[in-house]
């Protein structure tokens, strides 16, 4: 087991290198660079720059160097904790993303906890009470969850909260805390605001997860080891929770890995609607403005989180399933 984890950890730098190259070139792919779009912006507002100014700007940001050099300067800086400066915001990237990253991870964790603690029991109940009223009820609930766009749920809930309770549910902080430094009071305020967006984001995932859990468990419930546990005289609930639920959850555990990155990109619309200070909207803006250094860093962080997530789910899976432990 330990050996397995070490092996996986040794792979990490290699994966990160591959992804960093990947992120860099994807960002470079669109024609033009930041200066091109800056000129276009200036032109739109009626002013212009002469060629010398343009060259100076390019030189200042190192855009005149060959790609390879640009790449190594970028990576080298990051290794020293310098993520560079956002051309668009004219601020250090680290400063821009620090808090947003924390909030995104928090929101992701909360969403994850809510959707798993709803979906797993729903899946278990639907499967063990197949074709009962409660199963049909959850089936309808699940379809609605999958079919309703998340941003619409968000809008409806916002409207309900505002018109019936008079509270505004946008953002993650009360106005007085938005720009305040971190304190216990601010953290409490965050918790008060976090659960609703987390719930909205969780609903969609919950529905899918519950369907998969139900299907997996139905498969497992017909297996001979379940009948054998009954033949030993175990009570139904105890045996269901000990044997088939364990085996039905295993395949789901391997999906934990993509949870965070998926939530990152999937939540852009919701984050915009709810005005959440998360990473998603920042990435969208950096991409539309060709703010390549910022976009590159964010994409790389996505990859990093995906790798960490996969590592966590692989380790969890190996811990839960001895057959995988043996192969490793």
């Amino acid at each position: 087991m330990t050996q397995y984890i070490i092996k996986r950890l040794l792979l990490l730098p290699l994966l990160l290198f591959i992804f960093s190259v990947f992120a860099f070139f994807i960002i470079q792919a669109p024609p033009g660079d930041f200066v091109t779009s800056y000129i276009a912006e200036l032109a739109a507002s009626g002013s212009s720059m002469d060629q010398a100014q343009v060259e100076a700007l390019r030189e200042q940001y190192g855009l005149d160097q060959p790609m390879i050099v640009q790449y190594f300067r970028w990576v080298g800086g990051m290794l020293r904790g310098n993520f560079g400066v956002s051309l668009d915001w004219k601020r250090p990237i680290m400063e821009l993303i620090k808090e947003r990253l924390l909030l995104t991870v928090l929101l992701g964790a909360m969403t994850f906890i809510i959707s798993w603690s709803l979906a797993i029991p729903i899946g278990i109940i639907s499967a063990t009470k197949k074709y009962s009223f409660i199963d049909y009820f959850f089936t309808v609930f699940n379809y609605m969850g999958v079919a309703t766009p998340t941003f619409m749920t968000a809008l409806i809930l916002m409207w309900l909260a505002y018109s019936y309770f008079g509270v505004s549910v946008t953002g993650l902080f009360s106005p007085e805390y938005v720009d305040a430094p971190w304190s216990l009071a601010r953290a409490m305020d965050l918790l008060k605001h976090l659960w609703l967006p987390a719930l909205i984001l969780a609903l969609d995932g919950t529905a899918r997860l519950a369907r998969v859990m139900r299907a997996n468990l139905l498969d497992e419930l017909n297996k001979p080891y379940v009948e054998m546990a009954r033949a030993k005289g175990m009570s139904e609930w105890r045996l269901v929770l000990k044997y088939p639920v364990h085996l039905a959850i295993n395949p789901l555990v391997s999906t934990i890995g993509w949870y965070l990155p998926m939530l990152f990109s999937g939540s852009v619309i919701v984050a915009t609607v709810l005005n959440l200070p998360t990473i998603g909207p920042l990435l969208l803006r950096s991409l539309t403005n060709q703010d390549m250094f910022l976009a590159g860093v964010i994409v790389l962080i996505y990859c990093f989180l995906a790798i960490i997530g996969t590592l966590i789910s692989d380790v969890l899976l190996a811990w839960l399933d001895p057959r995988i432990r043996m192969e490793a």
Partner: protein
Amino acid sequence: MEPLLSVRGLKTYFYLDEGTVKAVDGVDFDVFPGQIVGIVGESGCGKSVTIKSVLRLIQNPGRVVEGEILFRHQDEDGREKTIDLAQLDPHGKAIRSIRGAEIALIPQEPMASFSPVHTIGDQIMEAVLLHQDVSKEEARRISIERLHEVGMPNPEQRMKAYSWELSGGLRQRAMIAMSLACNPRLLIADEPTTAIDVTTQAQVLRLLLDLQEQHNMAVIFITHDLGVIAQIADFVVVMYLGRVMETGPVEDIFFHPQHPYTKALLESIPSIYAPAGERLPTIEGSIPHPFSRPSGCPFYPRCKAFMPGVCNTSTPQLKPINDRQAVSCFLYD
């Protein structure tokens, strides 16, 4: 002597959308203490459903619809009382206290009947702890002893093994150890040797016979292999399409078979005395589809002694023809 288990008129049906499958449609047999009863019949004739009905393990859409399953239950003080298992709630406490404790099962598929993600030690200990008021260490000791008893090499280490790490023979031994965990009075073995190779088969049969003698258990042994029946059973129940065709002591079944189906079944066994090159007789026709069961005697479409107007109009009942054998056939009415 009173029977330990007495099944009377058992009917178990599966209510599917396509129709009703009468998997067991009137089965009677007795099992006496210390006796080995072999249930034999072709695949799909309802052997497994019969014994699952006895343990009340039939799940929806199946149901035990009729009949009595009388079992001589023994309470903690050793007092005996006959209870009808067919009347019990299949999820209730009463049947659960009998399953695994007084009636134990060796299932048809030992590989799939162990959980692949729990050690066999965990699963055997669980069987002990479910019915015996002992500490975990004591349960562990009992489990190791049981593994030792079934001839598992290095039982202490094997407690930590997973079922898929064992060979077929050892896996079946572990399964037997688990069934014996609580010293059952009735052991039901559902084709315990079909999944393993012939040499191991013989060893497992030997082991079951030894254990039966040591524990003085009654055993219901299910198989479609008459050769195995000849080796192990005292008494034989021949089944066809959910009904009992003939019952009797093993010698009578082999040397004086009465029912045309039993005769046909015996003729289809390859004999080493048969002249070389002779074709093996098989039973004419094929087993009817469960949805299109013939009315009357289920065997008449394949029967050599078919009597039109008799066999296809009413169903023969199982009746004793002498003090040992009983047959369900109009030839003996």
